[in-house]
């Protein structure tokens, strides 16, 4: 079952093509990440999918609804956590959650129960009665995120959900998101490679409005990054023959077969002091494909 589908989705802002002919198929229960540098078109995509922006061209289906024709149906099944922290400053956390809950036509009792659960899970309960302008940036961020979850939507759009959070809060959110895996359809954007790597079923790398690579994290790494690299420190490494390079007094071998390497090197008279392997990272994949570094 497909939950989110786009056909030739395009958005132009006065001649600037922010999203260019995007074709996506996200299955029900899948967690799909959009990874891309600043200005790649991630937020614009999410805004079109959540009916905040009309596409210039293209079609969007969310479950069985057309996002342009039936925005109200779509809005009933989605939860959106915007990139910026968006909360109502003079309300407290309970009241913020209650507002969104009521706008989704939930009854007060259910809102209370859900709020309690969410506030506890994300460690906001202690300060939940303070007006939110008194909370720290990270706390506001967490509140802004759970406001997208209060009505337990089937589809979640999370625009950089862990932006500006400390590692502990980030992990708490990852844990929470993992609980939904398989159950909710989630489209998230992120700048954190680790986040995309750990959480996603599939990753779409987006640059200048286009998807430039799309696959599972494992296969992306396999396909685009260099092989596993082995680094060896020791004596006589400069005498080794073959296609190796020396960097920082270390022998760099683009080959993952540690056992074979150790055997070969001892034959050539190298006395090994240390040996370690480097896994390929998504970061390398990203730089390889887009030629750009990500901001962290």
């Amino acid at each position, binding site marked *: 079952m497909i939950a989110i589908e786009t056909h030739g989705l395009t958005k132009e802002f006065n001649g600037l093509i922010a999203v260019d002919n995007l074709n996506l198929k996200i299955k029900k229960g899948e967690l799909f990440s959009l990874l891309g540098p600043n200005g790649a078109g991630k937020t614009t995509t999410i805004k079109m999918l959540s009916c905040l922006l009309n596409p210039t061209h293209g079609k969007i289906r969310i479950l069985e609804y057309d996002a342009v024709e039936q925005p109200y149906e779509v809005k009933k099944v989605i939860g959106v956590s915007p990139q910026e922290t*968006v909360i109502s400053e003079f309300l407290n956390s309970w009241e913020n959650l209650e*507002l969104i809950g009521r706008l989704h*036509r939930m009854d007060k009792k259910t809102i209370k129960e859900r709020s309690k659960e969410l506030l506890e899970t994300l460690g906001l309960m202690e300060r939940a009665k303070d007006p939110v302008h008194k909370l720290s940036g990270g706390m506001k961020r967490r509140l802004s995120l759970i406001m997208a979850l209060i009505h337990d939507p089937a589809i979640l759009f999370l625009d950089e959900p862990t932006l500006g959070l400390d590692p502990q809060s980030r992990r708490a959110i990852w844990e929470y998101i993992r609980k939904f895996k398989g159950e909710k359809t989630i489209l998230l954007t992120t700048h954190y490679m680790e986040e995309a790597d750990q959480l996603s079923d599939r990753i779409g790398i987006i640059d200048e409005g286009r998807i430039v690579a799309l696959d599972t994290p494992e296969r992306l790494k396999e396909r685009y990054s260099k092989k596993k690299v082995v680094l060896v420190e020791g004596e006589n490494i400069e005498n080794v023959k073959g296609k190796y390079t020396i960097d920082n007094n270390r022998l760099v071998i683009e080959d993952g077969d540690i056992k074979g390497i150790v055997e070969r090197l001892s034959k050539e008279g190298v006395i090994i002091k240390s040996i370690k392997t480097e896994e390929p990272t998504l970061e390398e994949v990203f730089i390889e494909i887009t030629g750009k570094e990500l901001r962290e």
Partner: protein
Amino acid sequence: MILALTSRNIKEIFRNRMRIGFLLGMPIAFMLIFNVAFGSSGEEIINVGIIDLDNSEISATYIENLGNISGINIISYDNEENALKDLKDGNILAYMTIPEHFGENMMLIWNNSNLEIDLKIKYDETLPNTASKFISIVTSYTLQFSRVSIPLRIDSEPINISYEKNLVNFFAPGIVIFGLMVLIPTAGGMITHDKEKGFMERILTTPVTSTQILLGYSLPLFIVALIQIATYMGVGFALGMKIYGNIFLLFAVYILTALWCIGIGMIISAWAKREDQAEPFSWIFMIPVAMLSGLWFPLENMHPVVKAIANLFPSTYSVNAARALVLKGSEFSAISNSIYILIVTTVILFLVGIFLFKKLVVK
């Protein structure tokens, strides 16, 4: 849905001290300041000039007794020229001319004739309230002096004294309307703030219609307006305001005023992208409009062009209707035109507001 938004917006307004301070505090402060500045009632001595053209014994007695009234200090002049000069220099704030044959006529009146007494008063128009106090003193004193109810004509320039004036009565309607006009920057600023901070988008990701959003913002502002009106009236009464007209009609005028203000605020917010555009723009719009429509000083003596411009603003109709009700006790028929204009304006503003909001929902 609407109620959820309404309750949120009410909380946002009332928990923001700046906002509520502006909405309630400022106009009340205005009233108190006006009252203290112009209304030091009774204690202050008014210097007035008298030109006696009659020079009879009766006119002399009349002047002498008038001078004995507390709070009035009389300076005599031989001719109008000197009196006018002192008036312009601010040494006196009004002068009265006693006509020839004043004494003879007064004698005839005492002998039961039906004669008219004609007194001319010129006063400094920048101080209408003090002058009106003098005029009412002269009126009651003259009636007392003539002992019978005579047709007394007091020719006062530039404002006639056909109705009883009272300081609070004069400025309260204008200040109430100005206070309600603070709803313009409040509505504009609040909605633009939510647009700028992404809160509007957040609301738009939930299944609400643009009309529901619009009502979710107008309703709380309307509730605030009711509280404003009640508070201002309360303070007005405490300062001695007396309403001569129908108080419900006055409420209706104030409520219409609140509605068109909210409508304008909404239109400004639909246009403005950022709060720092909406708020100053609202104030820049408001202050001249408030001045032109005679909120603070009467329009009667303004240039016809200014008057014509003033007639373009709904505030002019609000203040005219309110002042007529408070001061003159006018009937509905006398202010019906103003009321109809206000209703039509309100409806148009809201229709435009709804239209602009619909465009705001999907870009």
